[in-house]
């Protein structure tokens, strides 16, 4: 029975159930949720230390002699993701203590986010596609609920709908892939599927479906639009969604199936989509004004970089960025949330006075996060980005990647400099009132970000199958030089009181902030579907009226015929006589013949 322990890491699920049952649930919810997440962290620690390589299965239902199981498997990659989720979850919950400080709706929030955490943990340990699909759909639905948490705000329902209607495309395709894989191989076990020999058409089709599903979850082109709108959710949710859960699910799915993609020769589309998305993300991040949306586009870029690495079949580089990105992105989102809470502003051009003097801990932690994202030695981001640059297969792609690194350095320092501008007329008191429950997780994450560079050395020890890339001399020099150049340019443009401002109506803004018109495309697509719907409705009415017309014609016929049956002897006698005459004529005609 001890093998079932990994399944217990979904302890937040129990917490969610308890939250519903609790008596003073609005008051107790946060403690129950935190306790659940800490419990799961303990279990996850044990699992990651002692259970690696173990699998556990319990039959769910069987069909035609084939068993559909709930399978958990703790392969090294699973353990990695599980550990990341386990570490981040309690921090997010703790941060929520301070951030979600309204009295009401506490239980709904902690219920939903506990369910969300449990879904991601289940996803991390799932050893077959059935289990994974359960987690996958739970993730989609709970993220929908969380993004739409403040549904009373005007734009929120639409943002949530945009997320779910993108995600549902992936859900249906994932289901289709499951069906194809099961029909072709009669198994859904991931390790069994990884060992199948040869590549068939069905394998390719299933992999293509899964790839699209992964792109919808990880917000890659052309499914990238929901991610920035998802910023309407509470900030802890954004921090959670963008660091270790949800968007990572797509990357993770492709990562564990990477041998199959290699076998099927399908790395090219992964690489291409990754590159397109990275370019879109950087362009948007440079021109965005919303403090959280800049980070959202940055996540999109990080994910795109991971996909690019997967496209090079460089699993180590991808997973390294996967790990380090978790910490710095969680940290940066928490900082953004704190700034928003301190200033009450979402527009980055209207925030001021963020600095060393106003909140030491917050400022230093934020700088650590920013430096890591930009890729400064020896922080984690440096190794992550370097790994992807060095695995580039051609010179052109290398140049593109380095340019992306440079631009991401520009936008992240812009993100840092703009709120750091001084405006002595505005009060900076807000920064001092950021509650401790929000600062503590930020500080812990800052330490983790500082330490995350070690992942470069530790990952290969942990997971022997990942060949380490070697750091040369030239690559790090190029990267560092470009990052510093980005820092300098951002400083010149944005650190003064009158920062360079890209208006929403200006040409530059339109040039940068269009996501290649994918949003407009969707608007037209929906219009098209709506028109189609109108057409079909008209057709339906037409069918209906044909049938009604048919029915009505019987009534008319009846009305016409009822005149004959009028009860008058004269009429009947005439008809009788006419009939006789008619018959006589007919017989006579026959006789003549």
């Amino acid at each position, binding site marked *: 029975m001890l093998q079932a322990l990994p399944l217990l890491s979904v302890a937040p699920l129990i917490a969610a159930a308890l939250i519903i049952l609790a008596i003073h649930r609005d008051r107790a919810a946060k403690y129950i949720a935190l306790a659940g997440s800490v419990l799961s962290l303990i279990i996850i620690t044990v699992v990651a230390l002692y259970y690696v390589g173990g699998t556990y299965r319990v*039959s*769910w*239902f*069987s*069909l*035609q002699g084939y068993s559909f199981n709930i399978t958990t498997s703790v392969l090294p990659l699973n353990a990695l993701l599980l550990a990341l989720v386990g570490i981040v979850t309690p921090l997010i919950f703790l941060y929520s203590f301070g951030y979600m400080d309204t009295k009401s709706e506490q239980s709904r929030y902690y219920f939903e986010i506990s369910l969300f955490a449990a879904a991601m943990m289940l996803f991390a340990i799932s050893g077959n596609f*059935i289990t994974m*699909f*359960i987690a996958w*759909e*739970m993730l989609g*639905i709970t993220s*929908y609920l969380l993004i*739409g948490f403040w*549904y*009373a705000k005007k734009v929120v*329902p*639409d943002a*949530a*709908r945009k997320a*779910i*209607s993108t995600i*549902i*495309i992936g*859900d*249906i395709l994932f*289901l*289709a892939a*499951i*069906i*194809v894989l*099961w*029909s072709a191989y009669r198994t859904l076990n991931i390790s069994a599927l990884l060992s199948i020999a040869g590549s068939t058409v069905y394998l390719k*089709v299933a992999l293509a479906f899964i790839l699209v599903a992964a792109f919808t979850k990880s917000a890659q082109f052309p499914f990238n639009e929901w991610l920035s709108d998802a910023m309407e959710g509470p900030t802890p949710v954004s921090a959670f969604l963008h660091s270790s859960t949800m968007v990572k699910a797509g990357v993770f799915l492709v990562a564990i199936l990477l041998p199959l993609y290699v076998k099927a020769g399908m790395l090219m589309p992964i690489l291409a989509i990754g590159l397109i998305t990275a370019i879109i993300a950087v362009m948007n991040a440079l021109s965005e004004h919303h403090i959280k949306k800049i980070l959202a586009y940055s996540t999109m870029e990080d994910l795109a970089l991971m996909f690019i690495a997967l496209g090079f079949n460089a699993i180590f580089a991808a997973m390294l960025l996967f790990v380090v990105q978790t910490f710095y992105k969680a940290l940066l989102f928490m900082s953004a949330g704190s700034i928003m809470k301190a200033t009450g502003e979402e527009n980055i051009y209207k925030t001021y006075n963020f600095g060393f003097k106003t909140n030491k801990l917050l400022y230093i932690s934020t700088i650590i996060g920013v430096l890591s994202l930009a890729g400064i030695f020896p922080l984690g981001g440096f190794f992550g980005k370097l790994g992807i640059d060095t695995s580039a297969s051609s010179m052109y792609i290398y140049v593109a990647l380095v340019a992306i690194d440079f631009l991401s350095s520009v936008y992240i320092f812009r993100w840092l400099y703009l709120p750091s501008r001084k405006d002595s007329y505005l009060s900076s008191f807000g920064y001092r009132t950021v509650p401790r429950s929000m600062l503590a997780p930020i500080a812990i994450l800052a330490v983790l970000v500082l330490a995350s560079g070690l992942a470069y050395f530790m990952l290969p020890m942990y997971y022997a199958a990942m060949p380490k890339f070697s750091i040369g001399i030239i690559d790090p020099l190029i990267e560092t030089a470009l990052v510093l150049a980005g820092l300098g340019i951002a400083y010149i443009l944005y650190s003064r009181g009158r920062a360079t401002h890209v208006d929403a109506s200006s040409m530059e803004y339109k040039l940068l902030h269009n996501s290649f018109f994918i949003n407009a495309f969707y608007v037209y697509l929906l219009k098209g*579907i*709506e028109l*189609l*719907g*109108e*057409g*079909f*409705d008209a*057709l*339906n009415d037409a*069918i*209906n009226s044909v*049938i009604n017309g048919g*029915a009505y014609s019987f009534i008319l016929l009846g009305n016409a015929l009822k005149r004959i049956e009028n009860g008058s002897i004269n009429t009947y006698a005439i008809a009788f006589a006419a009939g006789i005459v008619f018959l006589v004529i007919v017989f006579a005609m026959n006789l003549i013949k």
Partner: protein
Amino acid sequence: MIPEFSIIFAALALGIVLAALLEKRFSYYIGIAATAIVLVVVLLIVAYEYVFGASVMAQTYAYIPQFGVHVSFIATPISTVLLTMTAVVLFAAALSSGKNGTSKGATVLMLLFGLAAIGLFSSSNLILFFIFWDVGVVATFFMISYMGSANRRSAALKFLVYSLGASAALLLGIILIYFGTPVHSFNIAYIISHGSLMPIGVQESIFVLLFVAFMIKMPIFPLHSWMADAYTESSTQGSMLISGVLSKFGAYGMLLLFLMMPIAAKYSTYILALAAISAFYAVLVAINQSDMKRLISYISMLDMSIILVGIASITVIGREGSIYGMLAHGLGIALLFLVAGSIEGMFGSRSIKFIRGVVEGSASAAYSFMLGIFSLTGVPLTVGFIADLLIFIGAFSAFGLYGLIPLGAILLAGGLLYLIVSRSIVNGRNGAEAPYLPTASQKAGYAVLLLFIFAFGMLPFILLKIIGS
């Protein structure tokens, strides 16, 4: 041996008599008591068949022995699932009608309808099948014309005309079957095992006749015009029963038809095409509906088309999936209609242009609606997932990737329903001022349906073991 069918029919018949004789204030409780007994007995049948394997439960009495016609009821694996669905929907309908919303006539008709449904799903010969089919039609006709909303009369008449057409085709088909079988017989089990002995020509005529009859009841494009009116104009309980249970008359018949007539395999590709067209047609028509119940009607039609996909695959898994799909559709669509009824009560209108902020008025209605959507779009742990998975495994093995095309219609339906949620269910605050919030009995109805939606979604092995045996 416990005479389980006698108990069910006795409970329903007694309920009908008592509801008709006693005062109106007892009707609600009589309805609940009768349907609760049915539910308990049916769940006992399920438990028995799960534990002891599907030892086929049957009860037989002579009716017209000269023609080998017996009043004979049997709980085959397929019937067991449908009986479960019927019992749950009946109980939920009885429970949710509320003390003030129940009249003598409503209870009588509901129980009569339940009698017809249970009789039909458990009848072991085609004569009995036909009798209960027509009892169901009569009960439904009165249910629509007696308890519906403004345009109920024309809706009921339209339903009746279509149903008479279906009944005529059905009767003719049954007579042809009787004379087509080597030993003239109405027995369904016998026909299933000996159907292949019938001459091809006879099989073809029977297939066409019965296919049309069942197509009307399901309904499948292009014979669906009665559906939207009937579902929309009925009372809430009427909509639940008609959409949840009556549509299964057609689906169950279709399933039997494919089992009885091996010739069906010849047409399966065309039927898949028809089902796919019907699915996309339904969802595309649904897009432009502004009436909440009408919209749900077309979603229901979409789901019935998906069930037809499973039946048309002529694979064991696809068939099992379609049986599970009938369960899923019955529970899910009954839930959606029940919620739609509550919402209509809240806002005094069914137009989605007027419905705003349901969640502010009644969180339970809003969340039940969302959970119903989850089941209809096949989210795991709801009953809809098992259905979709099995249906499309069957469709894929029969038709290859073409078999997966109807998934696109489910995708569109999901997008549409989430749009409704964002526009009407959670948007705005009007719900907070709604004068009539969902009653406790309605909420109990949601709870019953949701309980079974999740129970059969999380524990699919119970019914799948029964179906598979």
